[in-house]
């Protein structure tokens, strides 16, 4: 399996970034994940992180190196992520449970199958055209809303989601696929921060024209610029299937042939309490070095 992948998350004008993304792969299968922790409920970022971790742990367990039943796996993994969040809420005695959206795409045997709950989206672009896109679980995107919307015209917020992970009611989700991928196909997962400020035409145009390593950061930049100071967090993870030059040295190139059977690679972080998507910044690097040198001095003094 060969693909090039790019992921990026930028904080908009919000106090914190509750979006999470990541991918993992074995020799024979790969999974790409994106979760957007919901505001208005506590600890959205924890819900998003838990969803990713739980999903990647399920993948790690099942993909040996392929998943036996893709659809069943996606459904089970989503449900266990949901239960993981509920368990966390109970353990922490949080009355209002943390919630998150989730979109995940599993690739194996040259086919992609995806699952989603909420309004984080998947775009599949082939030859510059939109081949598939998830339909959000919001009253705006789902036809069932017509009747409901009529009942309370005007006062009805069409952007409201009617499902997600972590809510006390069982999540609603959709599984699509398998879709056989062709060389050069691009698949992008994104949070509503991206599609909220860019329309499908713009998104598909960028993805169709450029390599994902270029299109993804450009799209994020555009979305942030367009939304201005009030921008939501913008997160994308995108991959291009079997790029001819997706050697490991190429930008973002991944070839799963380079890893052994039974081995699993992941960018999903294991700890969530203090990790998140923040990197070590310069100040922290300097502080770490100072701390280590201080410890060296103390130890040397003890020895002397």
């Amino acid at each position, binding site marked *: 399996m060969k693909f090039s*992948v*790019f*992921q*990026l998350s930028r904080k908009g004008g919000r106090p914190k970034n509750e979006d999470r993304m990541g991918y*993992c792969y074995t020799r024979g299968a790969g999974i790409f994940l994106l979760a957007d922790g919901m505001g208005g409920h506590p600890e959205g970022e924890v819900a998003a992180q838990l969803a990713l971790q739980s999903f990647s*742990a399920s993948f*790690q*367990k099942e993909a040996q190196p392929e998943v036996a039943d893709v659809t069943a796996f996606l459904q089970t993994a989503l449900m266990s992520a949901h239960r993981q969040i509920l368990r966390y809420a109970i353990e922490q005695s949080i009355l209002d449970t943390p919630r998150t959206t989730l979109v995940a795409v599993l690739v194996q045997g040259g086919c992609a199958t995806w699952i989603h709950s909420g309004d984080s989206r998947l775009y599949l672009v082939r030859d510059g055209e939109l081949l598939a896109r998830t339909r959000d679980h919001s009253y705006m995107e789902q036809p069932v809303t017509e009747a409901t919307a009529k009942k309370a015209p005007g006062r009805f917020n069409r952007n409201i989601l009617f499902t997600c992970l972590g809510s006390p009611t069982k999540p609603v989700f959709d599984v699509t696929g398998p879709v056989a991928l062709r060389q050069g196909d691009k698949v992008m997962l994104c949070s509503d921060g991206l599609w909220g400020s860019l329309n499908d035409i713009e998104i598909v145009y960028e993805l169709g024209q450029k390599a994902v*390593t270029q299109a993804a*950061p450009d799209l994020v930049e555009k979305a942030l610029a367009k939304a201005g100071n009030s921008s939501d967090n913008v997160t994308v993870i995108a991959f291009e299937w079997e790029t001819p030059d997706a*050697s*490991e*040295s190429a*930008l*973002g190139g991944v070839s799963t042939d*380079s*890893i*052994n059977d*039974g*081995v*699993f*690679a*992941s*960018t999903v*972080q*294991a*700890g*969530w309490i203090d*990790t998140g*998507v923040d*990197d*070590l910044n310069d100040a922290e*690097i*300097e502080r*770490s*070095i100072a*701390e*280590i*040198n201080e*410890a*060296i001095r103390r*130890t*040397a003094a*003890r*020895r002397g």
Partner: protein
Amino acid sequence: MSKVKPTPLPPDTMIGGYRVIRKVAAGGFGVVYLALDSEGQKVAVKEYLPSSLATRAPGELRPQVASEKLSLYRLGLKSFFEEGRSLAQISHPSVVSVMNFFRENETVYMVMNYLEGAALQDFIITARDLKQQKVFRESTIRSLFDEILRGLRIVHQHKMLHLDIKPANIFITDDNKSVLIDFGAAREVLSKEGNFIRPMYTPGFAAPEMYRRDASMGPWTDIYAIGACIYACMQGYPPNEAPQRLEKDRIAIALARLRGVYSDNLIEVVEWCMALDPLSRPQSVFALQKELSREGERRYTKLSVGEKVRLQFDTMVSDTKKSVKNVTGFGGKTK
């Protein structure tokens, strides 16, 4: 990964007041140089330069990191700091010591004392080529591992595991001290930092739980590796890999061949350390030390005629297999 390795710094490069003499080793995490400090003392300088994430063209000082690999690069840096932080707290003759830590060329460097000597691995290979009944004398093995275990005990006291103990990481200095080196695989156990998850282990020396993906590791994991190192000192070759042992365990047979050559007690210690079930091993270095340093007369039980016949038959079978499949030597790291 099939890509060009980053170029090491050339001789005479000045970094943080140290002058590079030459590269002495390179691993997944970076490069180790022999260097001189301002007073002309030899030091080992380890440069953080993960070969899978960073590149450096010849003639350049600064490594280049592709933007999409930056966050992994910085996560790796955290582990490098963890290694420095832990080693900085440890002062023990059997554990490599850190003298300085600095930042330059947009990466970081760890300065350690430079050891003159050779790795235990080299000694084993030299000794086994002499084709004598014993690779090492029993008293040599006991005193060597007594020193190593003293160091390892301190490491475990700092809530740290080595996780890559093998003859290549046990250094014997020219003044006959044994020192544990290369803590690159070490992670602090209690604060499991998120990381790029790729199991790293050396076949033969890695305990079975290092292959399993979610099993809990502990001091017993390093103790398995210690047992495997002692085994290698007795046999001249590393033991079978743990997964192979789970299928068909030949360790007991291999050790039985050493009966009469090494004491029953030493053979039992190795079997104890290398138990496949983590709970059946010594649970702490202290427990192992106690057993290994037990005074008293050593018993040597020779094999009975029946046992010898059975072993010989076994040798015939396995020799045939060996000629088909070459025996693996001291393998490198599998990543």
